[in-house]
C-alpha cells in the first residue's frame, strides 16, 4: 500500500431529486488508508453520497473516481441476507460474487462464533446473529474500500464491539473506510477525518 495515494475523489458532484439538488457541488479527496466519518442531519444527503461512492448511482453532474466494485464493500441500511438460505450459503453466495475464497466464509463464521449453526437458515437467527453474519457479507472479501451507511445503528453491544474490531483490522490492512453515523463517540474513536454535510453541501 502506498501511503498517501488518493483512493477516492469527487469533483463538483451534483445529484438531483427532480429539480431539487440533494447534493450540491461536492468536491473532496480521500487518501488511501483513511477512515472518514460522514456527519450531518437526516436528509442532508449522506445516504445519497455514500450510494454514489459505492457506485449504486451516478452523479448527474461532476465525476467520482472510486475503485472498481470488486474492491468495494458496501453495507447499506438492510442486512442483505436471504432468509431461506443458511448462514454459510449466504456468505458463500456473496463471496463468490465478489471473488472471495471459499475459506473466507467459514473463517468468518468461526470468528463470529456462528460455525455451529452455519447450516441453519438465517430465518431462525436472532437479530444480533444476523448482524454478525451480515458484517461478513461486506468484509469477507477484504475490500480496499468500505462504504458503510449507519453501520452502528441498531447493533447490539456485541456486534458494536465486533464492528469496531473489524474496522480497526481493515484500517491496519490499509483499507479505506467511509462511514456515516449518528453514534458520534463510536465513530470518532476510529475516524481520522470528518466530512460534514448540510442540506446537500459540504461544510
Amino acid at each position, binding site marked *: 500500500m502506498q501511503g498517501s495515494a488518493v483512493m477516492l475523489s469527487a469533483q463538483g458532484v451534483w445529484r438531483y431529486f427532480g429539480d431539487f439538488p440533494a447534493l450540491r457541488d461536492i468536491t473532496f479527496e480521500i487518501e488511501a488508508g483513511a477512515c472518514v466519518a460522514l456527519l450531518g442531519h437526516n436528509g442532508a444527503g449522506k445516504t445519497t453520497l455514500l450510494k454514489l461512492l459505492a457506485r449504486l448511482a*451516478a452523479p448527474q453532474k461532476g465525476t467520482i473516481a472510486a475503485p472498481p466494485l470488486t474492491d468495494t464493500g458496501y453495507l447499506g441500511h438492510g442486512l*442483505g441476507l*436471504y432468509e*431461506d438460505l443458511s448462514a454459510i450459503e449466504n456468505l458463500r453466495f456473496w463471496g463468490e460474487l465478489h471473488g472471495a475464497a471459499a475459506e473466507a466464509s467459514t473463517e468468518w463464521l468461526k470468528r463470529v462464533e456462528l460455525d455451529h449453526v452455519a447450516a441453519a437458515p438465517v430465518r431462525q437467527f436472532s437479530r444480533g446473529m444476523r448482524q454478525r453474519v451480515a458484517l461478513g457479507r461486506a468484509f469477507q472479501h477484504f475490500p480496499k474500500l468500505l462504504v458503510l451507511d449507519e453501520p452502528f445503528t441498531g447493533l447490539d453491544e456485541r456486534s458494536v464491539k465486533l464492528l469496531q474490531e473489524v474496522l480497526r483490522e481493515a484500517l491496519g490492512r490499509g483499507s479505506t473506510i467511509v462511514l456515516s453515523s449518528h453514534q458520534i463517540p463510536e465513530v470518532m474513536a476510529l475516524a481520522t477525518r470528518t466530512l460534514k454535510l448540510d442540506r446537500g453541501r459540504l461544510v
Partner: protein
Amino acid sequence: MIAAAWQIARKDLRQELRSKESLNAALSLTVVLLILFSFAFDPAAEDSKQWSGGLLWLVYSFAGALIVNRSFARELMNDCLEALRASPVPSSALFLGKAVACFLILMGVELTALPAFCIFYDVSLLGAPLMFIATLALTTWAVTVLGTMFSALTVNLHMRELMLPVLVYPMLIPPLVAAIELTRGVITGEPASEIWFRLLIGFDIIFTALAVALAEVVLTD
C-alpha cells in the same frame, strides 16, 4: 458474465425450492383454473380440440405472472437488491440469471400441470411431442424474459402484483397467439403454419436483446 448469471440463477432456484412460495401458488392456481375453465367450456364438446390449447396458454400465462412477480420482489427483504447492485455482477448477468431461474421454475410448473390438462380435457400431445416441447420452451422464454424485465421495472411499486400483468399481458399477445395456434396444431393433428414458429423465435430474439441491453439502465439509479 455467464458464470455470474448462473450463480444468480442457482441462488434463485435454491431459494424457490426451499420456500416454494411461487411454485406452490403457481401450481395450485394452474390446477384450479383448469378445473374452473372446464365448467365454462365443456371439455366433452365436439370442438374442444379447437380451443383447449388456447385455454392451456391462458392458464400458463397466469402462472407465469405469479412467478416473475416474485423474481425481483424476493430481493426486497433485507435490501438484497441494493447489495446485488453494489456487487461486481454486471446488470445484464443479474437480469439473465433471474430470467433463467424464472424460466426453469415456470417450465417445471407447466410440465407438472400438463398431465392434469391432458386428462381433464381428453387431449393427447403425443402426436407431435417435439413440436409441443419447442413451442413450450420458446413461449415460456418469451413470457419470462419480458416478465422478468417488468418485474425489475415494477419492483418498488406498492401495487406491483396488479401492475405487472396489466403492463405485460398486452405485450405478450403476439407470442401467446403463436403458442395457441401451434398447440392447436399439435392437438388437432393438422400442423399449424411454421410462420408462428418464426414469430416466436423473432419475439424471443428481439426482446431478449432489448432486455439485456437495457438491464444496466434499469438496475442502476
